[in-house]
């Protein structure tokens, strides 16, 4: 039962998330397995509807239980998250693993000051006085380099700029020293010059604290900046996973390769066209029987339309889910 020091901090196996609230059930995540070691950063890369945020939120079990069916196992530092209920689940959230959101403006309560919200989180998990908690909140504000931190603790979310709010959100998430940080597109809503600052801050804090991090993003550039490994998701499945270098330099899944090629990057002579991926992402409530990417794939053969593609190991820790690789191997 006890967690070994060498075991992964996050261990997801066979995760399957189905939303049952609508007219038809929607399988947002299908058979996702992923492990993150101590001090490792894994980026979950994908477009809207790929299931990356759903996977991340499942770790804290944030989906409404009445409208969601979750199968598989999720372990955080040995704790089986799926079996946690009530008070035990609440005690795990924010302490075992905590989360930063895409839009801190929406993820912070608008009618409480930012300081109060951090103090509230600290008091929830630590035995200390209010004054001590406030002191710790202040220290975290300094740590994430918020100028005039004492005054900013009193501020309401809408009184801060976007970058400051995200720094405050990070302070809130780290205030109880979690082992695992879940980041849900934390820089997407920010301006370019601010995005860099937040990415550098996160990378620095991650190294300093030895954090494990699951970082969800749609931006390959962001993933390259923060991650040790990248997992590419498409239509609810991880289609390719490997070290950043392997995935960026030698992408093996046609979707990953297409996504990398499609980026408008560097100067191109005018008149050139981008190598675009045709078609649009599939409807999750109505997935094709075979490979979900097959209708958009330039290399798709007959078997791709009918058979679910197998996971093929390509190199050390580099895997992709594609029939083509199987025949090549």
């Amino acid at each position: 039962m006890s967690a070994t020091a060498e075991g992964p901090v996050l261990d997801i196996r066979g995760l399957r998330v189905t939303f049952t609230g609508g007219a038809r059930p929607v399988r947002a995540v299908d058979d996702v397995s992923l492990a993150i070691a101590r001090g490792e950063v894994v980026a979950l890369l994908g477009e809207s509807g790929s299931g990356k945020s759903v996977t991340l939120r499942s770790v804290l079990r944030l989906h409404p239980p009445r409208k969601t069916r979750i199968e598989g196992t999720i372990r955080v530092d040995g704790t089986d998250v799926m079996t946690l209920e009530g008070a035990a689940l609440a005690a795990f959230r924010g302490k075992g693993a905590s989360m930063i959101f895409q839009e801190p403006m929406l993820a912070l309560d608008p009618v409480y000051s930012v300081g109060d919200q951090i103090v509230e989180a600290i008091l929830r998990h630590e035995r200390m006085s209010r004054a001590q908690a406030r002191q710790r909140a202040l220290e975290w504000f300094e740590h994430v380099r918020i100028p005039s931190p004492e005054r900013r603790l009193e501020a309401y979310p809408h009184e801060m700029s976007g970058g400051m709010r995200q720094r405050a959100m990070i302070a809130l998430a780290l205030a109880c020293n979690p082992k695992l940080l879940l980041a849900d597109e934390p820089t997407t809503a920010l301006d370019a010059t601010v995005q860099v600052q937040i990415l550098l801050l996160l990378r620095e804090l991650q190294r300093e604290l030895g954090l494990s991090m699951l970082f969800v993003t749609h931006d390959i550039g962001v993933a390259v900046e923060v991650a040790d490994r990248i997992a590419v998701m498409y239509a609810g499945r991880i289609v390719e996973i490997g070290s950043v270098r392997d995935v960026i330099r030698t992408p093996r899944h046609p979707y990953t390769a297409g996504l990398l090629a499609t980026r408008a990057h560097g100067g191109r002579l005018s008149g050139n066209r981008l190598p675009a991926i045709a078609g649009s992402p599939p409807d999750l409530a109505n997935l094709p029987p075979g490979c979900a990417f097959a209708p958009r794939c330039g290399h798709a053969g007959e078997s791709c339309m009918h058979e679910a593609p197998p996971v093929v190991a390509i190199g050390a820790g580099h895997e992709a889910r594609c029939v083509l690789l199987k025949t090549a191997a």
Partner: protein
Amino acid sequence: MAALLEVRGLVKNFPVRTDLFGRVKSFVSAVDEVDFDLHEGETLGVVGESGCGKSTTARLLLHLIEPTAGTIRFEGRTVGTAELPWKAFRRQVQMVFQDSYASLNPRLTVAESIAFGPMVHGLSRREAEARANALLERVGLEPNRIAGRFTHELSGGQRQRVNIARALALHPRVLVLDEAVSALDKSVEAQVLNLLLDLKEEFRLTYLFISHDLEVVRFMATRVLVMYLGRVAELGPTEALYTGSRHPYTTALLGSLLSMDPDRRTDAAPISGDPPNPIDPPAGCRFHTRCASAEPVCAARHPALTVLGGGHAVACHMSEPGSGHSRAAGRAA
């Protein structure tokens, strides 16, 4: 070369607070003294962060909001006067908005949305719908499957194609694209960018391409205009500007581009802090509060747009001879 569109002294202030008697106490200086030309056949990229005034500029250009000051001339004729009334101007200049969903009337079918403009300008319903179908086909959508649908039934990429068709329905010469691909997924964005390039050639269009994405602008634009807090910071041919930026803000923006190379990760942020609030912006050069090279002169007065040659111009005291900045050339030539 005479410019197709000349914008001079464009200003827009939005009142945010009024006193007891309804007098304006403070305002957002959204666009301040903006000048630029748009040449026939070019793509002028406009970049900048949130609050820099790029979207307001687009809306001012189409007179969707009333400018506080400024003139717009189209082919030498002043727009909004007897020379060129707004309605005639709007046949020539059309716009595609960022939010593909909000920019289509949810109660109209796709065909009705596209046919609306031509009918306003006197086409019969039949002619307008025929034009709508032809345009749908041209932007890569099957008229039979799409024309009779409502916007909520389409994907984001399809909706933005419909918006492009709608903008083209009046056969305009200029298209203002306000973050037109920003809300799309990368794989779909590439398709729409390619489509825009094709359409530009086919219909000999001129684009004003507004985006926060520097890579996309580099790909699309022939010239680039950089805005910061409502003002023009730098203007120049794309490659000259991307490889030899002269304004510290442009340099910082370009420095914020991510490398895409795991071995060359960014190790220092080019500038710190957030863009300031456009309510009561800093005096002098609006960038001086974040600029590493700022000197007293930068806070004292705002820099003039200095032409550097080769169509490159910059509004920075360091490039303005005789400005009093230690790095500026001593005397005006």
